[in-house]
């Protein structure tokens, strides 16, 4: 499913951008596992410091899971929720909370029918300039804004390397 979506998007993008030199490959940066581990650990520790136990997912450019961490002290739903929030942030290239706010006025939005999309705050896109290369999703704190703050702490920790 994800693979098909990626293939379609990738082809469309490559065709548009590289129309004048159609033999060119696309070059881009991607998240390494080491960077994902640093972001996820930082997010969990930040939330723990604030008094909350959270689960975290870090997804890559294709929406693929690079790192998924289930916090045994958080609720069972947090593992799935953090993944879906991250997938939503990656897909729409913006905070999942912004997407959630956007669909409040349009509860039948088609985007809500896509798999793994969730209208809930707590995930942020991971960017290199304007290029979204992944997302981090957090779930478990009492309030999406508290989850999002921990996601931000995770990204901030590696911001010097996101270029």
């Amino acid at each position: 499913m994800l693979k098909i979506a990626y293939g379609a998007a990738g082809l469309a993008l490559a065709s548009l951008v590289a129309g004048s030199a159609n033999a060119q490959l696309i070059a881009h940066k991607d998240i390494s596992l080491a960077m994902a581990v640093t972001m996820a650990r930082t997010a969990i520790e930040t939330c723990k410091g604030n008094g909350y136990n959270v689960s975290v997912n870090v997804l890559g450019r294709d929406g693929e899971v690079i790192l998924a961490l289930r916090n045994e002290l958080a609720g069972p739903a947090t593992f799935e929720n953090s993944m879906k929030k991250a997938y939503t942030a990656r897909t729409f290239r913006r905070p999942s909370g912004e997407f959630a706010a956007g669909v409040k006025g349009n509860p039948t939005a088609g985007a809500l029918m896509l798999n793994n999309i969730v209208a809930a705050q707590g995930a942020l896109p991971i960017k290199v300039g304007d290029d979204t290369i992944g997302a981090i999703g957090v779930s478990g704190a009492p309030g999406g804004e508290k989850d999002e703050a921990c996601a931000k702490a995770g990204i901030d920790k590696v911001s010097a390397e996101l270029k």
Partner: protein
Amino acid sequence: MLRTAHLATGLALAMTCGVATSTNAQLASHKDLTLPVALTIAETALETCKAQGNKVSVHVVGRDAEVLVAMRGDDTGPHTMENSLRKAITSRMQRRPSGEFANAVKQNPTAGALHLANMIPAQGALPIKVGDDVIGAIGVSGSPGGDKDEACAKAGIDKVADQLK
């Protein structure tokens, strides 16, 4: 799919309770993996394989075969995430190395267990135990050979051996 596995575990627990009828007010008491321990196991396995020149992905699952850590190694094949997960689940369900299960089904290719969701006859996963109690499993995929994956899984468990009690 995992939910099915979870229900099966629930049934197994119910049977355990059935055995304990003489003291039916007692709760089950057991140890479980924490995220820090699971993460140490996974990172050690991945680094061990990396030091051997092999790029792998790793899954650590808990008592109910629920995913505790899913870790996609840099530059690994796309299948390594599914494969490491299924090896780990197989090892947890069978309470033995997934490679032992693989050998067993060679003699019995129509084994019913092969038809359960997520079971896979492939070496590279080991159960995580506290004494005789299986509390989870670690699965590794990506090395050229299940024996190499399994060695990294073992390194991960060995790293936390003093905490598995």
